[in-house]
């Protein structure tokens, strides 16, 4: 049987990808950002997931304003890194486990989550930056990846509660798949940041750390947080953090925090990262 064993929360700031792609990780500005992922790469080498279920948001790359699905599941055999205005990232093609992805799609819809199915899709920094920080720069990604794109660009994003419940449905789907697979789920985006207009540059470290604390201690309470609190306290783009609830919902109620990293700034953003393991 396939099992979800752990969850990773992780920012996906595009500048982090650019820093890796252009060899700037040793610069003073970037060093502390990447230092916090050294332990994560060791952890990934030990955890050895067969499949990563990666919850992220597309930044108007696969979806422009013409079609805005709330939840879109990648079912294609592979996904090419997209040109986002400065050329595609020089990272490996992302390969799916299409049989598991199709199984999850069918299971989710019968479980009353009416997702959109993507049989063709390019992926942007929202998906590739978390892979880069967790794996470094391998020739091929060591795991297969099932992408779930969540709309957080146009308000309203799905509620935290809906995301948390979707995580539970994803777990049910994975656990009803016969192949013996170790699945790790990623929730990406955030933490506090505002990219636009006169309040741009907002960072709220106390709020971010409390969010990280409550992921372990009070996940259900945290999933009830209304959107306006994210927007006000963590910045207009901080609402991305609803995606972390999908990851959390897919884990046991009781988890162990095995790693945390927090750093300000990466470009306009507070970088947050956490690894949570189910207790065996």
């Amino acid at each position: 049987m396939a099992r979800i064993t752990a969850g990773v929360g992780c920012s996906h700031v595009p500048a982090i990808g650019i820093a890796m792609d252009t060899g700037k990780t040793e610069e003073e500005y970037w060093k502390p950002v990447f230092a916090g992922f050294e332990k994560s790469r060791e952890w990934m080498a030990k955890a050895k997931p067969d499949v990563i279920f990666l919850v992220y948001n597309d930044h108007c790359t696969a979806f422009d304003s013409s079609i805005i699905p709330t939840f879109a599941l990648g079912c294609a055999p592979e996904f090419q890194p997209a040109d986002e205005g400065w050329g595609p990232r020089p990272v490996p093609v992302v390969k799916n486990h299409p049989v598991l992805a199709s199984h999850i799609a069918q299971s989710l819809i019968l479980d009353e989550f009416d997702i959109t199915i993507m049989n063709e899709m390019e992926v942007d920094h929202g998906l590739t930056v978390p892979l880069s920080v967790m794996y470094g720069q391998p020739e091929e990604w060591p795991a297969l990846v099932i992408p779930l794109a969540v709309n957080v660009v146009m308000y309203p994003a799905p509620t935290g509660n809906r995301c948390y419940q979707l995580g539970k449905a994803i777990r049910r789907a994975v656990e009803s798949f016969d192949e013996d697979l170790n699945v790790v789920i990623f929730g990406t985006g955030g933490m506090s940041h505002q990219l636009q207009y006169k309040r741009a540059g907002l960072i709220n470290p106390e709020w971010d750390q409390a969010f990280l604390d409550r992921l372990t201690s009070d996940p259900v309470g945290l999933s009830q947080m209304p959107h306006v609190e994210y927007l006000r306290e963590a910045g207009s783009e901080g609402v991305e953090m609803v995606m972390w609830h999908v990851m959390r919902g897919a884990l046991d109620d009781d988890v162990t925090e095995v790693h945390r990293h927090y750093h300000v700034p990466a470009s306009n953003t507070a970088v947050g990262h956490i690894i949570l393991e189910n207790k065996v």
Partner: protein
Amino acid sequence: MTMKKDYEDIPGTFVFDADRARVGYHLNQFCISLGKAAGRDAFKADPEGYLARYPMSEEQKQAVRDRDWNRMLELGGNIYYTSKLAAFDGINFQNLAGLMTGMGVEPYREMMLNGGRSIEGNRYKSEWEEE
């Protein structure tokens, strides 16, 4: 019945909701087309001709011509879209934020290095004198 928008008292912020997405649709579709090389090449070759392909309001077109980043947001633009026009001009996210805040690129970068803009005094419009 009008839906209550409980986020409209946040200062210096546009929440890109369905109403704003409707108003800004063609502006945003123009911007996102610059995410691909074909769009960039066509816009570079003939800026006015390329703009004319998108049925934007004259105000929206003028904001694009002026590279008035805040005006674009006021007219329904969204940052993930307008950032493609900025990238076309060689402006990255951080420098774009420096321009939108009116701080300028270097002071903005300095603020971020020092921990960013504090939440204190920045939660409600009533805390800002100008709004």
